[in-house]
């Protein structure tokens, strides 16, 4: 570092010594006669102003100095302006440029400040000097001061105030530079300025010009040092900044100088940003934008292929925006643009699938991505094929597990997995609706598989975050049968069953269908909209929970909505199962009591409390204008589940992590009880070995039958062995 820096200034010194003189003179001269080459700079407008100014003071430069300026500017004038933006301009030119700025700035300032007394400025400057935190700042400041002093040296007779005002400007720059870019610049500068203060303690007037000159050149060389990172140097940067300030004449340049500096730097870099790498970085943004564009264009692209279906589809599309408005009143919901995108995505879904009814179910948050869930009902008979396919796969699974049994004579394991409870048919119970999910509006919708009771039962015992990838495995203690899509489906079923409510009277039991279902004993599970529903007062809805009813079936502990008797079923099947049943009878009661949950359309006021916490909170959306407010219902059992009702309309929405609330922390389920070993009984215990007496008694008995004597010898030998 030392070597390189030591070499560099020397070289620079030589250069700048040659140019230093003309530069100084030139700056002085430039005020006197504004050059045509300068006219493209804004400060030349002030040239005329500054022109008369020197009249107050004797001209600092000899008249003979003007020719070199012409010489220098002649070739340099034309490239002067353009390279300023992109590359460091030639030394002399930029110097001249900067000096010109200083001058104009100074003159601009000098006029209003002429009246202010001298000491003020000095004091101010010393104050600020003290407040300069870094040592490097100090030394740099000295350097600058010297630079200015030498600069001002030439104009000495004019006005001492000017120097001070200039210093302030420049100091601003320094301190600002330190603050914003300390990392970039300080590291390189720190060792650098040390030699610079050297000339400072030499006040001898005759030595001063040369020493000061060296100091100036050192400082300038330092300022001109190109940063290895950005390829810029501070000198040009400052000159560009000042140009810009003078260009734009902002109201309070001191305050926004950081931004100016930044803008200037940004303009340097703006071209570089267009590299391949950066474009790659932005690719996902464009990708999703492209996909979402399809959503917006969808309406136009879709021709009149099947008018009938289109009509149906339009009918099935929910009015998401309207309910989003009400939910917004309630303080729930997504951003306006996101909800509109979701609305478009739902439209896409209804257009591409034979959907009878569609609803925006909600959003489940995940670790990496979220799920947007749509609840749909297909037209009659449309979804049969897919269901069959799923059954096939299940059967295959069963076959595999049976194939593992080995055909040995040894006793086989009598343990049979408990009878799997079959899942409910589509369109009934927990599988009443079909759910589609997508990660982001615009991405493809994925149909979730139908839920099995086993999944619901296990899902109740575990608590897992969703990752956002449907195929990721669920690793949990009671092993979860399936991957995340199954878990998601199970949670959706549980949340729907718990939190989908409607105002009393909106739904009524369907007469015909209800009778059919009565065989199932769990009550009627079909309902239809009440055509005579007249609405409920919003105030009533808020004040009484009994005005809200569940319209989704309760899920029994078994995992189904409708009771399925596992014992009965096993009798019907094969004889083999009968044995199994008898085994079960030993452990379990003969008759498993039917699990019964609250029937459909039960008021939520009968919901169970969670440890002194009421399961629902109702509220009016606005206390200020109660007459137009909507009733808001919030579930405390499933945080994130909301419902609103404005008297006539209602909607349910869930936005959250998909977990149930419990005041206690989650406890993993206890391990299953260890199997008892066989009880000690006649089958297990053996009789003692026959003793000698018994043998003899036996022998005597045998002798009666006249057995040969050899066998008794053998038995004796046996006895020996046993002892």
């Amino acid at each position, binding site marked *: 570092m030392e070597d390189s820096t030591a070499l560099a200034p020397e070289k620079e010194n030589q250069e700048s010594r040659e140019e230093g003189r003309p530069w100084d003179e030139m700056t002085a001269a430039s005020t006197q006669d504004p050059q045509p080459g300068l006219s493209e700079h804004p400060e030349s407008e002030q040239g005329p102003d500054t022109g008369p100014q020197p009249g107050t003071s004797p001209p600092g430069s000899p008249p003979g100095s003007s020719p070199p300026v012409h010489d220098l500017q002649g070739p340099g004038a034309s490239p002067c302006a353009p390279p300023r933006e992109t590359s460091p301009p030639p030394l002399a030119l930029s110097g001249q440029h900067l000096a010109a700025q200083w001058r104009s700035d100074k003159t601009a300032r000098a006029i209003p400040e002429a009246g202010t007394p001298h000491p003020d400025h000095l004091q101010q400057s010393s104050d600020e000097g003290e407040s300069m*935190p*870094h040592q490097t700042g100090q030394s740099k400041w000295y350097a600058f001061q010297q630079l200015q002093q030498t600069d001002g040296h030439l104009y000495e007779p004019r006005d001492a105030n000017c120097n001070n005002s200039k210093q302030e400007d420049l100091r601003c720059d320094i301190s600002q530079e330190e*603050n*914003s870019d*300390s*990392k970039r610049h300080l590291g390189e500068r720190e060792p650098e300025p040390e030699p610079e203060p050297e000339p400072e303690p030499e006040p001898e007037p005759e030595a001063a010009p040369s020493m000061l000159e060296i100091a100036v050149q050192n400082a300038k060389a330092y300022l001109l040092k190109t940063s290895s990172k950005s390829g810029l140097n501070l000198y040009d940067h400052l000159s560009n900044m000042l140009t810009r300030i003078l260009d734009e004449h902002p109201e309070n340049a001191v305050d926004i100088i*950081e*931004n100016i500096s*930044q803008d200037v730097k940004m303009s340097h870099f703006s071209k570089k940003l267009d590299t391949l790498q950066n474009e790659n*970085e*932005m690719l*996902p*943004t*464009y*990708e*999703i*934008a492209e996909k979402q564009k399809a959503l917006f264009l969808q309406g136009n692209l879709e021709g009149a292929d099947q008018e009938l279906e289109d009509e149906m589809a339009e009918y099935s599309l929910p009015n998401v925006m309207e309910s989003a408005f009400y939910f*917004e*009143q*309630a*303080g*729930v*919901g*997504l*951003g*306006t643009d*996101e909800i509109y995108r979701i609305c478009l995505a739902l439209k896409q879904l209804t257009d591409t699938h034979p959907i009878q009814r569609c609803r925006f179910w909600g*959003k489940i*948050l*995940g*670790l*990496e*991505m*979220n799920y947007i869930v749509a609840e749909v009902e297909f037209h009659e008979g449309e979804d049969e094929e897919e269901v069959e396919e799923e059954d096939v796969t299940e059967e295959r699974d069963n076959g595999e597990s049976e194939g593992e049994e080995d055909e040995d004579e040894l006793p086989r394991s009598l343990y049979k997995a408990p009878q799997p409870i079959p899942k409910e048919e589509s369109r009934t119970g927990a599988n009443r609706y079909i759910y589609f999910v997508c990660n982001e509006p615009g991405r493809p919708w994925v149909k979730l598989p139908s839920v099995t009771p086993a999944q619901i039962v296990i899902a109740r015992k*575990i*608590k*897992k*975050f969703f990752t956002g990838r449907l195929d990721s495995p669920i690793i949990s203690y009671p092993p979860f049968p399936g991957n995340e899509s199954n878990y998601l489906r199970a949670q959706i079923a549980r949340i729907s069953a718990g939190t989908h409510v409607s105002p009393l009277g909106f739904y009524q039991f369907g007469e015909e269908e209800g009778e059919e279902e009565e065989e199932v004993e769990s009550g009627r599970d079909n309902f239809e909209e009440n055509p005579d529903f007249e609405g409920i007062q919003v105030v009533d809805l808020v004040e009484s929970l009994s005005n809200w009813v569940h319209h989704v079936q309760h899920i029994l502990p078994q995992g189904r909505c409708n009771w399925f008797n596992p014992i009965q079923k096993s009798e019907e099947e094969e004889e083999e199962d009968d044995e199994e049943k008898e085994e079960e009878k030993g452990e379990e009661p003969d008759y498993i009591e039917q699990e019964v949950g609250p029937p459909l359309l039960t008021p939520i006021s009968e919901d169970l409390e969670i440890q*002194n*916490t009421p399961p629902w*909170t109702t509220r009016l*959306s*606005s*206390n*200020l*204008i109660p007459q137009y407010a909507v009733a808001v219902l*919030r579930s*405390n059992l499933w*945080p*994130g589940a909301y419902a609103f009702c404005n008297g006539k309309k209602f909607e349910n929405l869930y*936005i*959250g*992590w998909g*977990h149930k*609330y419990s*005041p*206690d*922390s*989650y406890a*993993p389920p206890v391990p299953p009880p260890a199997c008892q070993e066989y009880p000690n009984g006649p089958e297990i215990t053996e009789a003692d070995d026959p003793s000698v007496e018994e043998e003899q008694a036996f022998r005597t008995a045998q002798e009666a039958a006249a057995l040969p004597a050899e066998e008794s010898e053998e038995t004796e030998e046996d006895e020996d062995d046993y002892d």
Partner: protein
Amino acid sequence: MDADSLLLSLELASGSGQGLSPDRRASLLTSLLLVKRDYRYSRVLFWGRILGLVADYYIAQGLSEDHLAPRKTLYSLNCMEWSLLPPATEEMMTQTSVVKGRFMGDPSHEYEYTELQKTNDGDKVFEEEIVIRIKEETRLVSIIDQIDKAVAIIPRGALFKSPFGPTHVNRTFEGLTLSEAKKLSSYFHFREPVDLKNKTLLEKADLDPSLDFMDSLEHDIPKGSWSIQMERGNALVVLRSLLWPGLTFYHAPGTKNCGYIYVGTGEKNMDLPFML
């Protein structure tokens, strides 16, 4: 989130479903301005909302010039009348740690907690039941303080430490770049550093003293207590705390828009290890 740019911030943070109704929004915009004037804060943050069973607490925080100085916390039930909360103390923390369950929404509500206390009377040991009453306001203070200490975050570079100590807003902060925004190491805890002092010199070697003066998120325990997501293409990065579900931090990379909001029940998620 900054009270001055509340509307934009709410829009950005709305991905988690935590919004404010229009009347709440309007009243907050009005009243926080007055709070700023009356309490002479240099900056007012809308901190969030704690959902109670009966009513919600709306929480705002006032910052002084030094951003890392202890913050003043105010709460309101109707978003118009704000009351100052006392600073949280260790004693409060231990006292309220026994309270479980949801907030009621009534600051004067008293939780009753019976504690068995052993008293030695000569040789015999008696067990006495002592009923401790804890005001909900106290619990509110300690919960807010815990959340602040645990999960209040700020992107790297948004604040800078001046050599004299105070921490200021970095005017030149122009947002994180896209690649930085995806890393937890570019986010800091918005509090006095705790872990930083315990780091070795080697670990501290690369740190920039004016920027890296707070604890980074990446060393949070347990690992994975943050969910980091890019939303709206890559135009928005959202961090959600899993330890305190309800805290959402949003930042639009390349812009100054960043902030956090807590909307939740004010309960810590103790089940986190099971859920990951």
